[in-house]
C-alpha cells in the first residue's frame, strides 16, 4: 500500500495507491490516466481508479470535483480526452478508439438522479428500458420488471404515473432500473439523494445484500456517514484529481486516533509531559471548568501503555477517551475546509 505514485504531492495527506499493473486489469473498474477536458478546463485529471472485485467503493468529493464526469466516462456517455477505462476486464474506452459499450449489459447504473418519461407509469418506464436492452430475454421481461419494483418497495405504486411520484419514489425507480438484470457491477451516483431515513436504510441494506451476492458496487455520495457505514473502500476526488484511494480502515487509520485525558488543573502539565515521553503527537493541555483536558494524537503508540504511564507518574485520571476520527475528518483533511466550489 505504499504510495509509489503520488499525483498530488502538494496536498497534505494525499495518498493514491499505485497505478494498476497488468495483472489487476481484471478488477471491475480500472482507469489509467483518465482525463477529460471541456474546452480549456480540465475537469478530470489523470485519474487512476481501481475498484477491487466485491468491494463497495465509496466515491467521494466536494461538488464540482469531477465525480460525475468520471462516472459518465465509466459508462461510455462521455469520451475521455486521454486515458483508458476497463470495465469488468473489458477495455471500454480509450483515446482514439470507439467506445465499446457492450460490457455495460453487466453494469447497472444510476447517474445524476432519476430520469423517466413523466406520463408513463413506473412499470411502463421500466418496460421501456427492458425493451431497449438487446440482451434481455423478452419472455422473462414482466417477471424481472416486477421483481425489480418489488426489491425497491415500489410494486404497490407500479401503475402510478411517474410524474405523480415523490422524489424518493423516483430515486427508488432509478435503482430498480439498475437491478432489472443481474449485474456484476453497479455504479450508483448519489443513490440516497431525496430518500427518507427508512429509504436510506433500505438502500444501505440493498447495497450490502448485493455486495454479499458478489456484486461490486461503486457508490458516490455526499453523506459521509452513509459511506462510512456501507463502504469497504473509498476514493476521494478533489479538483479533478483522485487524492486518496484506499480501504476505508486505512484511510481512517491514516488520520489517526486522538487521546483525550481529563485530569485536575495540577495534573495537566505532568500529563502533557507523560504523553510527550510516550511518543504521542502534539500533546496540548487546556483548562476546562474546574479541571483540565490534555489531548494528543495516538500515532503509532500502543494504546495499552498510555494509562499505566500516567498512573506511574501520579497523574490523576478523571476521564480517558480514545476518539477515532470520522470519515468526515479524513475527508476534510484531504479536501480542505473551504465551502467555495473550485472553478
Amino acid at each position: 500500500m505504499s504510495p509509489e505514485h503520488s499525483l498530488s504531492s502538494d496536498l497534505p495527506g494525499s495518498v493514491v495507491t499505485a497505478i494498476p499493473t497488468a495483472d489487476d486489469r481484471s478488477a471491475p473498474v480500472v482507469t489509467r490516466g483518465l482525463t477529460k477536458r471541456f474546452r480549456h478546463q480540465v475537469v478530470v485529471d489523470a485519474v487512476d481508479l481501481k475498484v477491487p472485485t466485491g468491494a463497495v467503493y465509496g466515491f467521494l468529493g466536494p461538488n464540482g470535483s469531477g465525480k460525475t464526469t468520471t462516472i459518465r466516462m465509466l459508462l461510455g456517455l462521455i469520451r475521455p480526452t486521454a486515458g483508458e477505462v476497463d470495465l469488468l476486464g473489458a477495455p471500454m474506452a480509450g483515446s482514439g478508439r470507439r467506445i465499446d459499450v457492450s460490457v455495460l449489459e453487466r453494469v447497472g447504473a444510476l447517474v445524476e438522479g432519476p430520469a423517466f418519461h413523466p406520463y408513463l407509469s413506473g412499470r411502463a418506464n421500466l418496460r421501456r428500458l427492458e425493451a431497449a436492452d438487446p440482451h434481455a430475454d423478452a419472455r422473462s421481461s414482466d417477471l424481472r420488471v416486477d421483481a425489480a419494483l418489488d426489491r425497491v418497495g415500489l410494486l404497490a405504486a407500479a401503475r402510478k404515473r411517474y410524474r405523480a411520484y415523490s422524489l424518493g419514489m423516483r430515486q427508488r425507480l432509478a435503482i430498480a432500473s439498475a437491478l432489472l438484470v443481474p449485474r456484476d457491477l453497479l455504479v450508483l451516483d448519489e443513490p440516497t439523494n431525496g430518500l427518507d431515513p427508512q429509504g436510506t436504510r433500505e438502500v444501505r441494506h440493498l447495497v450490502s445484500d448485493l455486495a454479499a451476492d458478489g456484486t461490486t458496487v461503486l457508490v458516490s455520495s455526499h453523506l459521509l456517514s452513509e459511506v462510512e457505514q456501507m463502504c469497504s473502500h473509498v476514493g476521494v476526488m478533489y479538483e479533478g484529481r483522485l487524492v486518496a484511494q484506499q480501504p476505508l480502515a486505512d484511510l481512517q487509520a491514516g488520520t489517526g486516533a486522538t487521546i483525550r485525558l481529563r485530569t485536575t488543573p495540577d495534573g495537566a502539565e505532568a500529563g502533557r509531559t507523560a504523553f510527550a515521553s510516550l511518543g504521542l503527537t502534539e500533546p496540548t493541555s487546556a483548562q476546562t471548568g474546574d479541571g483540565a483536558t490534555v489531548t494528543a494524537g495516538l500515532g503509532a503508540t500502543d494504546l495499552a501503555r498510555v494509562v499505566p504511564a500516567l498512573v506511574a507518574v501520579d497523574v490523576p485520571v478523571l476521564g480517558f477517551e480514545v476518539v477515532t476520527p470520522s470519515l468526515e475528518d479524513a475527508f476534510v483533511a484531504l479536501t480542505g475546509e473551504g465551502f467555495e466550489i473550485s472553478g
Partner: protein
Amino acid sequence: MAETEVLRVGSTARWLPGRFLVSELGLIFRRRRNVAGLGVLAVVPIILAIAVKTSGGGGGGPDFVSSIIGNGLFVAFAALTLELPLFLPLAVATIAGDAVAGEANLGTLRYLLTVPAGRTRLLVVKYAAIVIFAFAAVGLVALVGSVFGLALFGGGEMILFSGTTASFGDAVGRLLLTCAYLGCGLSALGALGLFVSTLTEQPIGATVAVVLVNLMMIICNAVEQLSWLHPWLLTHWWMAFGDLLRSPVVTADLQRGLWTFAAYAVVFWLLAWSRFTTKDVTS
C-alpha cells in the same frame, strides 16, 4: 452466479431492435400531444368535404377541390395537397425533433445509453419510428378523406388529369401510390429532423428549426430567380404526386423525386449518426 447464467441463456444479443421499436411506437402513438396532432390532420379532410358539400362546389379553387364533386376520392387528394406545405411537415418535425432531443431533455437518453441500447441502434429505431409515423400521418389523412368523400360525394369512376377515365379500383391504387410517395418525401424531412435533434437538448427548438427549413425550401421554390436551386429542394418534388393521376403515369419527375428523397434521407441520417455516435452525453 448461477442465476445470472440461467437468465442469459437464450438471450444472445439480438441486435435487431423489434421490441425497442414497438416500445418507441407506443411512446409516439400513445402520447396525448401526438394523438391531438393526428386529430388535427384528420379534421382537415372533414372540413374540406363538408365545405364543398354545403357550398355546392364550383368556384375554382385548387385543381383537386373542383374535382371533388365528381368523385369523393378527390377529397383525399385535395386534403393531402392542402396539408403538404405545413401541417404534415409540422407533424413529422414534431416527432423527429423530439427523437433524440426529447430524450436528452428528460434525461432518459443517458439511461437508454447505459442499458446499453447502443447509439447506432437507437438512431435506427428512432428513424424507423419517424418513417412509420410519416406514413401513418399521410395514410390517416387519405383514409379520413376517402371515407368522408365517398360518403358525401360517392365513388365510381374517376376522371384523371389527362382526361381519361380510371376505374374505382385503379383510382384507389393511385391514391395508395400517392400516400407511399408522400410518405417517402416526409420521411426524408424526418431524417433532417433527426439530425437537428442530435444537435440540441431542446425538442421544441429542433421542431421549429425543421419547420423553418421546410418553409425556407418552399419560399426558395417559389422564387423564379432561384430556378437552378429548385431541383435540389426536397419540397420541389413533393407536388410531383399529381403525375400519378395521369394515364399513363408520367414517371420522370416521380423518379427524380424518389432519388432526391433517398439522398436527403441517407445524407441526413449519416450526419445524425456521425454527430450522435461521437457526442458527449452530458444531459
